[in-house]
């Protein structure tokens, strides 16, 4: 189940509501969205499987992310350092973080494995900071693994519609 470019990903025709695993994945993705809006980053970390990859690419067509410059390219270590930065109180942009409200929808299953599925979705985030309200639109692809502890995120790719333009984001995560 390679994480393919959006334009070529094979999509299930079945509704996610009819597939218990897809439904569990969607529930996890919604919970993740809630935790990120609430900036509950330590709890967010608990949603990840060991070895999880969290990537916000610049090139929307890229699949070999390591060979490209990304906005975020996190393994476990970088993700935990990022959480440390977001919770330590040492960052002035985090102290002044935008408030965010996001909704995630348009769920489609794009891959199946024995112990994992891949789900594509649309995320619309509205942010507010000082006197400005702004919108960030993203295509998101989650790979969710089902282990002994239940579903966990093993890969999350967030493709901003404007990733190759100027992106303004302050003190929050996509």
């Amino acid at each position, binding site marked *: 189940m390679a994480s393919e470019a959006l334009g070529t990903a094979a999509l299930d025709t079945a509704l996610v509501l009819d597939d218990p695993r897809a439904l569990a994945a969607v529930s996890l993705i919604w919970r993740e969205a809630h935790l990120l809006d609430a900036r509950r980053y330590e709890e967010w970390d608990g949603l990840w499987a060991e070895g999880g990859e969290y990537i916000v690419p*610049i090139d929307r067509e890229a699949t070999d992310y*390591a060979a490209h410059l990304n906005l975020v390219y996190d393994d476990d270590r970088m993700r935990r350092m990022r959480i440390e930065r977001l919770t330590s109180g*040492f960052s*002035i*942009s985090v102290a002044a973080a935008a408030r965010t409200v996001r909704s995630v929808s348009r769920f489609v299953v794009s891959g199946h494995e024995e112990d994992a599925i891949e789900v594509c979705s649309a995320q619309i985030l509205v942010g507010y900071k000082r006197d400005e309200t702004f919108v960030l639109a993203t295509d998101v692809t989650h790979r969710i693994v089902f282990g002994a502890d239940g579903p966990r995120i093993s890969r999350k790719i967030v493709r901003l519609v404007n990733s190759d333009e100027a*992106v303004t984001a302050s003190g929050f995560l996509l």
Partner: protein
Amino acid sequence: MTTTPDIDSLAQDDRVSSALYTDPALFDLEMDRIFHQTWVWVAHESELPKAGDFRTAYVGRQPVIVTRDRRGGINVLVNRCRHRGASLCEVPKGNGNGFTCPYHAWSYALDGKLRGIPYPDGYEDVLEKKDLGLQRLKVGVYAGMVFASFNEDIEPLEDFLGGARLWIDRFMKQGAGYPIKVQGEHRFRFRGNWKIQLENTTDGYHFPIVHRSWMASVDAETANMLSFMTDEKAVTHALGNGHSVAVMVPEHVDLDEDDGTEQLQARFGHIIEELSHEFDPDRVRRIVRSLHGAGFNLNLFPNVAMSMSFFRVLRPVSVTETEIRHVALGLDGGPEIVNRERLRIHEHFQGPFGFGSPDDSEAWDRVQRGVTGGPSTPILVNRGLAREKPNDLGQPTSHTTDETGMRQAYAMWKRMMTDGK
């Protein structure tokens, strides 16, 4: 009626007026007298390796296309059809035979010559194609850095760069024998005047304060490498023509010089191991010592900095808005593991989700918001004035936490704004 502002009182040796960040009339004058007069950085040659390669850029507020033509020449062309003004190119980069206007299909060659006009009969005895090429800017290239100017009479690029050339040459040594290439870029905007960012590049004073969360996230060796606050060898030089350099890692000023005492950082152990299969130990050491880039930030007035391992490019959008690009660099033809590590180092600090840039951006936003209070209160750029002395080249020199670089930039600002030269 526009009156000429009193530039002398707006920019003094140790302070500048808040109006420099807030006055739209001053911004318009800056576009005319600085950005449309001087050399403005538009690209690095590695972005245009082949004939037909192009990228878009700005000179001041004007959109331009930078191209490599069939003869290998670099052209900088205003991105505007000579017919009814439509933009010719709306992609950031690519490769092609030329540019065709989407409106009436006037087509232009890579050097800007007007090649074709559809249904030309309506133009008989009306126009000559040779008169209607794209507007061309003067182009200068130094060490792969491509600059352009609207000013046909501008001094040669090498003269303009002057004392900065030595530092450009030193910067390029981070290639460790390979040419430098562009590997990608982060772009973001902040709601503030462009000079707030210009000041920041040689502002060593802010580093451990604004970037505390980044310092806390890196290994002790990297944090120690950037502990220059009380290091007497960390100095800033004013290089003339608005340019300045702030040394943060004195032992990495000239990467060809190595007394052998420096321990290679443990974080690069996996790279050292892989490179050792292919290169002898001296070569491995030379490459790995260069992974963080050069040990200084070089600020080239008015729009580009060569900042340790990347280029910082600023674009004034309006008096209160600026776009920043942080251009990641790698070794052209160099080991893949090294180029990937450089990407990861860049991602760690730079960009809207980096551990450094958002905090800079927040500080700059706060300056722009703050200066609306007490508009007659000056911005102070006097740190280190009493300890600033000429070095052996006669360049004003002080500690890297001092504001020597800002004073140099504002002296050039004042000169250009006063006489427009």
